[in-house]
């Protein structure tokens, strides 16, 4: 199964362990530097760790060394991850550049584009945001209307993007624009622009959770250099869809964040605290108890499916049907967990602010609301079902 011998694995394990011992600041055990970096500058040990991993290329371990990646084999990358887990080291390089844009540019970008944009991603220097959705183009993404005109020596872009995650912190944007209004999918192009370009205006959107992880992005006479077109003119839809596959993979936990759904206080412990137990020590409310059990079993089945998909990927059989269901099942399990937590905690689980609530309780309220986005973004649950029906099951479009 491993793609290199165990002697090599042992040798690389020693190398990884030595390097981490010399370079990982122990003060950062369990600290998510990538998350800090997503919303602002990092300093001190965090900056040091980010710079060292960036220079080594191990934040993007399997990307080609020629563009600043680690150049490791998948097996070596797993060894590195194991060694990092052992000491609580988290990858300080993250964000959309790693999860979506980088892999897509490596596949579709020109040599010049890769040389220019990939190394700063590997070093965690540039934050990318995604200019996809528009007010009139949500689930029907290909209906997008942002106009991109060829002005000879540059493109001129006018329009509005929405749900741009982290746009208020982003340095660059990868963006789908319309370069031909006479056709739908074949009139879309994939371009890149600097968020500091004149005419780019960002307004954060306040959500039901009270947070603003998304923005509206207004584009007024934005001048984009011609070299920032990725792939052919009017050939952006294929590239844009490929990027969405990377997005779904990372949203469902296929990108390695499999532990996310197990995070937080287990529901049974929560229920014993807030609901109480019966004479035999079981959760006192039998209806709630059976629904918690049902949920926990589905969460366990989902975790086993993630593990199976990873084992299959290592086995070299290519992605199986298991991957196609990940986003929907993962988001459903996460939402169900939050709904049950609210129900278990009663009024204490709806605390909004101020006295009378623990930080965890307040966070739970916001997470419950924020989590409603997971079946909407990255292709809604309904769109995922359309994709499964058509691409995996081979069912036809309605005529």
């Amino acid at each position, binding site marked *: 199964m491993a793609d290199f011998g165990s002697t090599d694995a042992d040798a690389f394990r020693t190398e990884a362990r030595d390097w981490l011992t010399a370079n990982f600041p122990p003060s950062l055990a369990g600290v998510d530097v990538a998350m800090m970096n997503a919303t602002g500058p990092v300093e001190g040990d965090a900056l040091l760790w980010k710079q060292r991993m960036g220079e080594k290329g191990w934040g993007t371990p399997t990307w080609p060394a020629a563009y600043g990646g680690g150049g490791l084999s998948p097996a070596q990358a797993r060894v590195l991850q194991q060694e990092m887990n052992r000491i609580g080291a988290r990858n300080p390089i993250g964000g959309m550049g790693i999860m979506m844009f980088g892999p897509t540019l490596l596949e579709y970008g020109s040599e010049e584009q890769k040389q220019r944009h990939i190394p700063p991603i590997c070093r965690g220097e540039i934050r990318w945001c995604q200019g996809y959705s528009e007010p009139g183009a949500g689930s029907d993404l290909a209906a997008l209307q942002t106009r991109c005109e060829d002005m000879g020596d540059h493109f001129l872009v006018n329009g509005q993007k929405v749900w741009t995650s982290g746009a208020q912190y982003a340095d660059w944007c990868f963006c789908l624009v319309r370069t031909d209004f006479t056709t739908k999918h074949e009139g879309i192009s994939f371009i890149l622009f600097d968020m500091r370009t004149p005419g780019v205006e960002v307004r954060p959107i306040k959500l039901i959770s009270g947070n603003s992880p998304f923005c509206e992005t207004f584009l007024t006479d934005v001048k984009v250099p011609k070299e920032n077109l990725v792939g052919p003119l009017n050939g952006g839809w294929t590239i844009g869809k490929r990027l969405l596959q990377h997005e779904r993979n990372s949203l469902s936990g296929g990108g390695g964040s499999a532990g996310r759904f197990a995070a937080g206080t287990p529901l049974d412990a929560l229920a014993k605290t807030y609901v109480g137990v019966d004479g035999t020590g079981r959760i006192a409310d039998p209806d709630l108890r059976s629904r918690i059990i049902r949920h926990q079993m589905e969460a366990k089945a989902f975790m086993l499916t993630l593990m199976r998909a990873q084992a*299959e990927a290592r086995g070299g059989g290519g992605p199986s049907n298991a991957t196609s269901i990940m986003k929907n099942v993962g988001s459903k399990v996460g939402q169900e967990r939050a709904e049950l937590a609210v129900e278990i905690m009663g009024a204490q689980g709806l605390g909004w602010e101020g006295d009378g609530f623990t930080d965890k309780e307040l966070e739970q309220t916001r997470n419950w609301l924020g989590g409603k986005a997971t079946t909407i973004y990255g292709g809604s649950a309904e769109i995922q079902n*359309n994709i499964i*029906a058509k691409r995996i*099951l081979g069912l036809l479009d309605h*005529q």
Partner: protein
Amino acid sequence: MAVLTEEQSMLRDAARAWVQEKAPVSALRKARDGGSLLGYAPEAFADMAAMGWAGVVVPEACGGSEFGYLSLGLVLEELGRTLAASPLAVSSMAAVSALVRAGTDAQKECWLSAIAAGEAVVALAVDEGPRHDPVRTALKAEASGGGWRLSGAKAFVAEGMAATAFIVAARTAGAPGDEAGITLFLIPADATGLTRSPRHLADSRDYAALIFEGVEAGAEAVLGRAGDGYALLERTLDVARIAIAAEMLGMAAQGFDTTLDYLKTRVQFGQTIGSFQALQHRAARMLSELELARSCVEAALAAIDQDAEDLAQQAALAKAVAGDTLNLISREMVQMHGGIGMTDAHDAGLYLKRARAVETLFGSTAWHRDRWGRMQGF
């Protein structure tokens, strides 16, 4: 699909090919219409034994291939696809696991090679009513001379008419509901005082009602330790539950494939009904459930091979998730086929009937959910 070795892939492919050729759904239909008590033709099971399937988890020294539970699970899944009946799950997997784990040398010698050769079938005589509840065991075994006398009844013993012997759960102490005081016995089907009669369920498979009237059993008939058999019983049942879950996975997978084919071929309103979004999204849900069930079943099979500490949890999870999945798919299979799915001539009804029978066998979905919750401390 789990990552398989080359040998496992070959075994699965061989099983798939044999099942398609020798045991399609029409074989079950033929056995049913011919009044078979077993649900299969004896020569079909002889064929399986000749291919080594009856001895996949039997030690090599006893004539088996010791090829592992995941491997046997692959065969059971393929058999499930066409509802191919056999005593492999109960006898060649669950009973063998008990004999290997707790059998004396004499018991192993007597039974294991005969099971591997397809000459013996050992069924599990545990439940005494229509719902699975091993701890309620009431059938009495009283000390008599140097041995025991068994009196009582067992109900709905799967593969009970085919069995040449039974692993019988009996109470040697305590009262129904007590874990302590349960003893397992190996009793030949032709023992004096033991009578059996068939019970015909909707799935046309083999179930027997057993009556024990002072059946004499020597001390050598005790499997494991007298009075302390509950842990062995539960572990044996867990293996049986996982075996049945593997069969259920195959049934669900085929039920889905058959339904998907129909969605692609049945035309109404001038287009295939599979082009309607209402049906597409239900199909997508079935695929999701199927993938989750596969993960649980394959993990549980591997857990037997690894003798995992949490085998009981894994068995409960696999049986419950496979149960939910098969329940959904067997309903949708009938519904999406419309009127044709209601006819006896179509296979959908056979899947529906077998689905409910295996859902209740060795513990229903709700029973295993509650059991899983208890084991987790809920």
